[in-house]
C-alpha cells in the first residue's frame, strides 16, 4: 500500500440517509489494472467518483499522486463530434477559458493518444459513424491525451460485443505496461479475471481486494450476487472462469 499512487483510507459515502459504503480502503499501484466488480447498485460508480475527487466522501481520505482522469463510458457524444475534437475538448478543460486554439504541442499529444487507441484513421470521423467500441476508445483517448497517470474507467465494456470488449480491455492492459494505474468498473467477472492484475469486489458496502483467484471465489461471489456461482480454471490460460449455477 505504501507505494500506491491512489489511496483511499476508511472512506464512506452516503446519499442523504442512504449509506452506499463505509470504511473502504483501497490502494492502487502504478502499472496495475484493478477490476472493480460487484452487483448493480453496490456503489462502483460512486466509488470511482469519490476516487476521482468528484464526490466528497462522508468520512475518510482519498490521496492521489496525480489528478485522476475519470472516463464514463457508454455515453454517446453529440453525433457530429470527431474523436480528435473530443480529445481537444478534454485538453481544453485544463486550459484557461479564453484560450480557444489547440496548441501545437497539444496537436501531437492528440495524434499520439488517438494512435494508441487505434483511432488514427478515424480522427476526423464523426462519432455517429463509429462503432460502439471505437467510441469507447475515443473516450479512453481523452484520458490519455491529458497524460493521466491514474485512469478510472466506468464500464469500459458496456454495450460492447466480445471483440470490442477484448480490444478495450487489451488497451487498458497496455496502458498499465507504461506505468498507468487503471481502475475499471466491470460486470464480466471472467473478463476481470482474464485482464486485471487485481480484483476489487464491492458488495454490501464492503470492499475486498486482491489477486483474481483469491477474490473471485465461488462462495463470496454467490453471496455478493445472490445467485449460485461456480468458478473454474481456464484450461489453457489458467485464469478464473466464473459461471452461474
Amino acid at each position, binding site marked *: 500500500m505504501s507505494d500506491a499512487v491512489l489511496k483511499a483510507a476508511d472512506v464512506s459515502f452516503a446519499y442523504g440517509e442512504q449509506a452506499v459504503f463505509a470504511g473502504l480502503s483501497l490502494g492502487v499501484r502504478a502499472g496495475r489494472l484493478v477490476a472493480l466488480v460487484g452487483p448493480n447498485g453496490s456503489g462502483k460508480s460512486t466509488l470511482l467518483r469519490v476516487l476521482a475527487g468528484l464526490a466528497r466522501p462522508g468520512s475518510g481520505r482519498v490521496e492521489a499522486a496525480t489528478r485522476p*482522469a*475519470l472516463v464514463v463510458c457508454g455515453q454517446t457524444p*453529440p*453525433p457530429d463530434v470527431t474523436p480528435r475534437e473530443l480529445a481537444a475538448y478534454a485538453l481544453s478543460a485544463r486550459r484557461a*477559458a479564453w484560450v*480557444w486554439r489547440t496548441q501545437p504541442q497539444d496537436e501531437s499529444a492528440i495524434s499520439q493518444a488517438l494512435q494508441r487507441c487505434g483511432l488514427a*484513421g478515424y480522427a476526423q470521423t464523426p462519432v*455517429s459513424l463509429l462503432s460502439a467500441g471505437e467510441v469507447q476508445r475515443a473516450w479512453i483517448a481523452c*484520458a490519455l491525451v491529458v497524460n493521466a497517470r491514474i485512469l478510472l474507467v466506468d464500464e469500459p465494456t458496456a454495450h460492447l460485443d466480445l471483440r470490442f470488449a477484448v480490444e478495450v480491455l487489451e488497451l487498458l492492459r497496455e496502458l498499465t505496461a507504461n506505468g498507468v494505474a487503471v481502475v475499471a468498473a466491470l460486470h464480466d467477472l471472467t473478463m476481470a479475471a482474464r485482464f486485471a492484475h487485481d480484483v476489487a469486489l464491492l458488495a454490501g458496502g464492503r470492499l475486498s481486494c486482491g489477486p483474481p483467484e483469491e477474490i473471485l471465489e465461488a462462495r463470496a461471489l454467490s453471496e455478493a450476487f445472490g445467485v449460485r456461482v461456480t468458478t473454474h480454471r481456464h484450461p489453457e490460460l489458467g485464469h478464473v472462469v466464473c459461471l452461474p449455477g
Partner: protein
Amino acid sequence: MQIGLRHVGARHVSPSRPRRVVMPLLTPRAKLVRLSVLASALVLTLIAGACAGSLRLPPGQVIRVLLHPQAQGLVHEIVWQLRLPRVLAAAAVGGGLGVAGAMLQMLFRNPLVDPYITGVSAGAALAACFGLVYGVTFTLIPTLAFAGGLICAGVVAWIGMAGTGNNNLRLVLAGVAVSALASAVITLLLLWRGAQNVSLLGWLAGGIQTQSWRQAGLVAAYLAAGLAAAFLLVRDVNLLRLGSSAAAGFGLPVEQARLRVLVVASLITAACVAASGIVGFVGLIVPHAVRRVLGGDARWLLAGCAFAGSSLVVTADLLARSLVPPIEIPLGVLLAFVGVPFFLAIASRPVDV
C-alpha cells in the same frame, strides 16, 4: 448527424470488416467562409433595414449618409436619428436571443429549449405588467422588466440547482412552473386593471419600439457585455454539451460551469426582453439553423448565432414596419408566422444538439 458529410471511399480496410471512412465536409476554412457569409448577410440586412420604412431610401444614398456622419439634411436625420438606432437595437436583440438560445440548448442538451425556458420572459412580463398597471412611466418599463426577469431566472436556477439527481430536468420543470405562475398572475392583472392598457398588450406581443440612441446604446452596451461573457464560456458550453459526467471527468467543475452559463444566458435574455418585449422563436430556430450550417462546436456556433439572429430580427422588423404601413405588425406575431413553418420543417428532420 449525417448531413454535411461526404463519403470519400474506404482508405483503410481492416481485414475482418468493411470500413467506412468519412471525412467531415466542414474544415475550419469552410466554416470561416460560411461565417463570413453570415456576417455579410447581417451587413446587408442592416443597410436594408435603414433603407426601408414609410419613406423608402435608395441604398446608395443610405450608404453615403452612413459614411458621412457629420453631414446635414432630412435623409441624414432619418437615417441617423430614426432608422439606425432601431435597426441596431433589432440586431442586438436578435444576436442576443440567438446566442442565449444556443447556450441553453447546449447546457440542457435539449433541442426544444429556448431562452425563455429560464423563466426570464415570464418574470419580465410580470414586472412590466405591474409597472404599467400601477402607472409607472413607460420609459422605466424596460428596467422593471429586466429586474423581474432576473429575479424569476434566479428562482428557477435556485430550484433547479438544489439537491441531487437530474438537474437538467428539474431546471426545465422549474422554468415551466414559474412561467405558468407568472402567466396566471398576468392574466389576473389584465382582467382586473389592464384591459384598456394597449401599450402593455403591445409590449407583451414583442416588438422593437421606436428606439432612441440612448435606449439603443444602453441595450447594445449591455448585450456587448453579455456576449463577451458568453464567449468566455465557450469552453464550458462545449464541455457541458458532452454530458455532465464526461465534463466532470475531464476536470470541469460542472455545477459552477452550469450556473455560469445559466446566469450569462439569463442576463442576455433579460436585456433582450427589456428592449423588445417577448420576441419568440428567434432563440429556438436560429441555433438549429446555424448548427446545420456550422456544426455544433460552440466556438463557431455562438458567433454564427449572433450574426444569424441579428439578421433575422432586423429582417423581421423591416417587414413588420413595411408590410402594411402605417400599421406596425408586432414582431412576435410576424416571427411566429415565419418561424412556425421553418420550425416544423426542421422538426421533421433528425435534430441534434
